[in-house]
């Protein structure tokens, strides 16, 4: 594999270990941006194995990470001007936390990688620094028993590593808490948006053209007004559920994500309806308008519900409980809206 971040090698008793740069270059940043937008994200990897950062010796710390390139980059850029060993596990290109949840960033893989890289011959100590979020996959006591290496759970954020290392491998409570700040939520939006938008590309043209059916002012006038109104509502649902709900998450009412999305969807529909009534020549029959007060919030609630997977604090038990009422409600709401909208094309003159 072409790995341009390798800038040489460091000699060890086990042979040459590739030396990596802690400087990120333009392709690294561009790669992160692409991955955030879902482009090539499942194949954004580095080769697993041992790497040297700076000029590490047998007393240098060993830091373990996943072979998702973005995880690897976040780690090496935070360790500039330091000497350390980086042990990259094979997690199929998945980030640390997701991979730990799946077990691929797990005890077995860690033990295998320690043995494969002959780590005990490269360093004279027996400590490994793992990201705290590897916890769901790695059993520290089992690693110790099987390899002799003691797992130290470092901070959650790579950016806290310098402070952690300088404090003699000590964390402060803040480093151990997973947050979900606005910035952390915003960077997750593109991937959600891209996957939702794929469906929209199929649905939007259909609604746009069907908007012309039964229009008293003629088909194309109907398309340009009611069709456009439908498209605005569908895009509004996307905006409400996949963008605004994630951004405004802590301030929207309710605990369930579907409820937050529902509220955001209703607000959005209200604004779009006002726009439609005042600026578009939409048919002002109650079915044509009411339809979107069902469809848009239902779609928004569904999209918001899917953001549970990206969030950092939802439990599986909770998501299952939420889905037991939310999914039926979203389906009923969607069907009701669809029936009203299609009905308004045919029933009324």
């Amino acid at each position, binding site marked *: 594999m072409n790995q341009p971040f390798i800038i040489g090698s460091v000699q060890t008793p086990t042979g040459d270990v590739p030396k990596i740069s802690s400087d990120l270059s333009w392709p690294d940043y561009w790669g992160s941006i692409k991955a955030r937008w879902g482009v090539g994200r499942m194949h954004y990897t580095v080769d697993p194995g041992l790497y040297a950062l700076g000029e590490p010796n047998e007393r240098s710390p060993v830091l373990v990470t996943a072979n998702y390139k973005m995880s690897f980059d976040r780690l090496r850029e935070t360790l500039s001007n330091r000497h350390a060993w980086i042990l990259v596990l094979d997690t199929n290109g998945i980030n640390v936390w997701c991979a730990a949840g799946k077990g691929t960033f797990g005890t077995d893989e860690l033990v295998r990688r320690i043995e494969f890289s002959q780590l005990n011959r490269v360093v004279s100590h027996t400590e490994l620094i793992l990201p705290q979020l590897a916890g769901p996959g790695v059993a520290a006591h089992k690693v110790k028993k099987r390899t002799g290496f003691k797992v130290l759970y470092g901070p959650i954020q790579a950016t806290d590593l310098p402070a952690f290392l300088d404090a003699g491998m000590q964390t402060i409570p803040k480093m151990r*808490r997973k947050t979900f700040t606005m910035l952390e939520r915003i960077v997750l939006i593109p991937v959600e948006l891209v996957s939702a938008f794929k469906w929209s590309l199929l649905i939007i043209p259909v609604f746009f053209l069907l908007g012309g059916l039964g229009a008293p002012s003629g088909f194309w006038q109907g398309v340009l007004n009611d069709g456009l109104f439908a498209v605005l509502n569908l895009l509004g649902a996307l905006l409400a559920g996949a963008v605004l709900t994630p951004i405004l998450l802590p301030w929207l009412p309710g605990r*369930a994500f579907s409820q937050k999305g529902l509220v955001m969807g209703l607000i959005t529909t209200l604004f779009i309806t006002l726009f439609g009534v005042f600026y578009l020549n939409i048919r002002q029959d109650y079915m044509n308008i009411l339809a979107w007060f069902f469809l848009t919030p239902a779609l928004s609630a569904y999209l918001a519900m899917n953001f549970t997977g990206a969030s950092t604090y939802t439990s599986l*038990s909770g998501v299952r409980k939420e889905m037991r009422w939310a999914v039926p409600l979203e389906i009923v709401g969607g069907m009701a809206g669809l029936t009203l909208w299609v009905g308004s094309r045919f029933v009324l003159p």
Partner: protein
Amino acid sequence: MEKMIYLKDVVTLQLNEKNCSGCGMCIVVCPHAVLSMNNRKVQIENRDACMECGACAMNCPTEALTVQAGVGCAAAVINSALGREGSCCCVIETKNEPPKDQSKSCC
């Protein structure tokens, strides 16, 4: 915004205090400060903050903690219900069973 809490009274986290050795590893790995130390034993201090990631149970050497660990992801629940398999982390499966296919992305 200091603490975001999901649904109340749903979490499957269980502590068997008799087994607890007070080593504190669970407190170290928990990303939401659910657990705390009380008289050399761990206690569940903030149950509703638990996201069932399973890190505490995984790292408990004396099996004092149990939790039905999983990823709180609606897409995963849907994928499992529809019998789809192996799409990155958006499917609920047994641990240590590597995904068969990495072609789909979602989480």
